């Protein structure tokens, strides 16, 4: 390594250059320049994962704020806060502190609402990002491991969301915990033990809140952080996938360099995501726990839905027929076990195994860095669309009572409608998607913006159609890609104001 002494004025890059040299002497940071040159492909759909990442950052920051005021305890206190309807009532410390941090702590309500919105956006962005990865085949070799990590992130995010939703100890979340307890209880053989060990006894007990709290603020966030780090490390190491296009091959990446262009855009995007969540927190009320009241196991509210990512489970539970199995001196509550344990188990196992399933089926063991257009893989696209359709129907099924009320239909009609749709819609979605894909394959340039044809009538009455030039943005993608500028001084060039051979901060390299 160079033993450059940082003396003034020898470095053409000034103080910053000196600092970088000092760092390089100790850590070899200059070798990290390849990271600055790293090229990221441009496509709007590559932004979805960024939304997830940035809402996760918002979650961490707002979450830290909330932990400073939230008290994870279910012991009862008499409320003496600023929310009048509750004054004098005996409520749990968890609920009291949640109401207090909403009303008595300056900015507290905003932080709580931002935290909740960021959670919904986090899970939503993960799902949409996964859909992008799935439909474009980005999960294929060599990226199966990152698909697995991503799926785990989704599972953990949903669990984390449920736990956080439970912490305020309000009436709605308490009912959610009750249902979760009964779902665990329904697991054959070990269910009662799992439920008793997880909840520290029969429902509700006093250990849930502190236990959920530590899982929510420490254990799962740690795992999430580690996995997010691994996810990004693999992304950098394996380099991003790209859509096929001019000059794009399996062996290159075409796009914008990390520093400064991508960095500027993505940092701006971080601010915009944070800003959007703050605006939602300001203007869109979410989970007004003070209106629900505190949790009391003997009370219940009507027409309350869980957060959207739990909707499919609730819908599945609603439309399942009452098929309890009992015999051999035992009971298996199939009406609970099938929709809420077996069904999500099958779905997530399929998601985890999909890269392997597809590789086995297609016998394709090649490395893939170019993405598929979804229409070119009609079977995969149709299968994915089918699963999404099923989830969407089950999600709608989680509000059968509201639908029945709103449309003045009988609950029975709605229930049977949802049961039929649950079977029929996914079955129809598959062939319809397949056909659409097949038809799209016939169109050249499908998915690209169409340019207008300018029709001109000549003086002779003749009509001439001339296609307008391509949109500037589309034309841009057709440009020849440049190599990323290296800033490494070519051997025949001389760095400004520095004589050849003098110790400088500029490295020389033969290219």
């Amino acid at each position, binding site marked *: 390594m160079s033993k450059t002494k940082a003396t003034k004025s020898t470095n*053409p890059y000034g103080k910053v250059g000196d600092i970088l040299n000092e760092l390089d002497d100790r850590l070899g940071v200059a070798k990290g320049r390849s990271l600055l040159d790293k090229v990221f492909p441009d496509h709007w759909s590559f932004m979805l994962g960024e939304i997830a990442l940035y809402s996760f950052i918002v979650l961490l920051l707002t979450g830290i704020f909330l932990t400073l005021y939230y008290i994870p305890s279910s012991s009862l206190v008499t409320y003496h806060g600023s929310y009048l309807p509750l004054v004098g009532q005996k409520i749990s410390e968890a609920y009291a502190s949640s109401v207090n941090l909403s009303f008595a702590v300056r900015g507290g309500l905003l932080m709580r609402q931002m935290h909740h919105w960021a959670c919904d956006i986090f899970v939503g962005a993960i799902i949409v990002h996964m859909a992008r990865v799935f439909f474009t085949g980005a999960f294929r070799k060599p990226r199966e491991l990152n698909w697995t990590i991503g799926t785990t992130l989704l599972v953990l995010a949903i669990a984390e969301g449920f736990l956080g939703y439970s912490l305020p100890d309000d009436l709605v979340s308490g009912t959610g915990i009750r249902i979760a307890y009964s779902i665990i209880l329904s697991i054959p053989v070990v269910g009662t033990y799992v439920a008793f060990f997880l909840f520290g006894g029969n429902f509700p007990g006093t250990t849930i809140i502190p236990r959920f709290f530590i899982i929510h603020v420490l254990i799962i966030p740690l795992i999430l952080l580690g996995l997010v780090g691994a996810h990004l490390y693999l992304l950098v190491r394996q380099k991003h996938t790209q859509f096929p296009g001019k000059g794009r091959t399996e062996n290159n990446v075409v796009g914008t360099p990390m520093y400064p262009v991508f960095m500027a855009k993505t940092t701006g995007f971080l601010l915009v995501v944070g800003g959007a969540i703050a605006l939602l927190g300001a203007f869109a009320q979410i989970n007004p726990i003070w209106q629900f009241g505190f949790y009391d196991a003997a*009370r219940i509210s009507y027409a309350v839905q869980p957060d959207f990512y739990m909707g499919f489970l609730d819908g599945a539970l*609603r439309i399942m027929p009452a098929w309890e199995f009992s015999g051999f001196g035992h009971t*298996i*509550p199939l009406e*609970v076990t099938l929709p809420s344990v077996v069904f999500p188990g099958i779905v997530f196992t399929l998601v985890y195994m999909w890269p392997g399933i597809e590789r086995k089926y297609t016998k394709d063991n090649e490395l893939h860095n170019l993405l598929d257009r979804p229409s070119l893989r009609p079977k995969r696209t149709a299968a994915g669309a089918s699963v999404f359709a099923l989830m969407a129907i089950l999600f709608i099924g989680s509000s059968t009572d509201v639908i029945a009320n709103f449309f003045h239909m009988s609950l029975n009609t709605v229930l049977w409608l949802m049961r039929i749709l649950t079977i029929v819609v996914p079955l129809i979605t598959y062939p319809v998607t397949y056909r659409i894909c097949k038809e799209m394959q016939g169109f050249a340039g499908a998915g690209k913006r169409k340019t207008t044809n300018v029709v001109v009538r000549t003086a002779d009455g003749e009509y001439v159609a001339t296609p307008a030039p391509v949109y500037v943005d589309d034309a841009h993608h057709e440009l020849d890609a440049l190599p990323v500028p290296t800033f490494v001084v070519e051997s025949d060039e001389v760095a400004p104001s520095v004589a050849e051979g003098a110790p400088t901060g500029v490295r020389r390299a033969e290219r």
Partner: protein
Amino acid sequence: MSEHEQRTPVAISGLSVDDPHLQPAARRPELVERVITILFVVGIILCVGFGVAYVQNWAPWTLGATMGGGLSFLGIGLIAWGKYLMPRGPFVEERHSLASSEEERTAFAAAVVERGGAVVKRRKVLGGLLGTGLGVFGVVAAFPLVRSLGPMPKGTLFHTDWAKGTYLVDITGRRVNVSDLAIGSIVTVFPEGMQDTDNGQAVDQTVLIRLSNSDFTTMKGRETWGPQGYVAYSKLCTHLGCPVGLYEQELELLVCPCHQSMFNVLNGAMPTFGPAPRPLPQLPLMVDAMGYLQSQSDFKEPVGPGFWERRS
């Protein structure tokens, strides 16, 4: 310093202002700069406004509006800067295979198998002992880790606090008299002394309904369970344990708001709709000399949702 500034416009060597690799807007950089300046200034003003709103303790939405607006304007400005004033390529980077050469692979495998594996192979007994030790530790360590988390279920799920002669009290602890309810009325009751406890509320909760003025039989074999038209059912839904909190008086149905299971109170709370598989257990009632309602015994079957150990 001037030399450094000279270098700035040629951030990409060989790029001129009319280069197609620049955004079209970059050909009028002064205009773009002006727009971005405005965005940044508005962003700064809003961020200052956030501080003012905080100090002045304005309504919560002003905090979010200024903060969200400030971040958004700064972000949009920064994105615009990156998009319009920086070279946008496309640039190309070569992708190098991550896989190692054949020699490296062989050497690696050799090191793993021969250097490491051979050591174990030569000392099979030691290896086995170490494996056994770690395995035993794993199993033993799991006991305190898992077992201490909670009590064994044992019979907990089979019993409630109702027993022979337990008085029915409402949520305030007041005993319920036969003269209290009009026909068609409903009240949630608890075993006396349990109305304020977690277990009382979560497990023992029972709905008491008055169906008529004379003794009411909901099912064969339950002739004595409904004195003077009072019947009592466990309030825990047999589907997922939500409180069966809605009473549809005209149809004589108890409805669970969670997943819309319905139970007919006239015939032993048989489920008539929804996913609940079993009727709500009925609590046998009796009336003492003063006219206060008591339970004859505990429920005859476990209350709430199904589980593996449940018989029948």
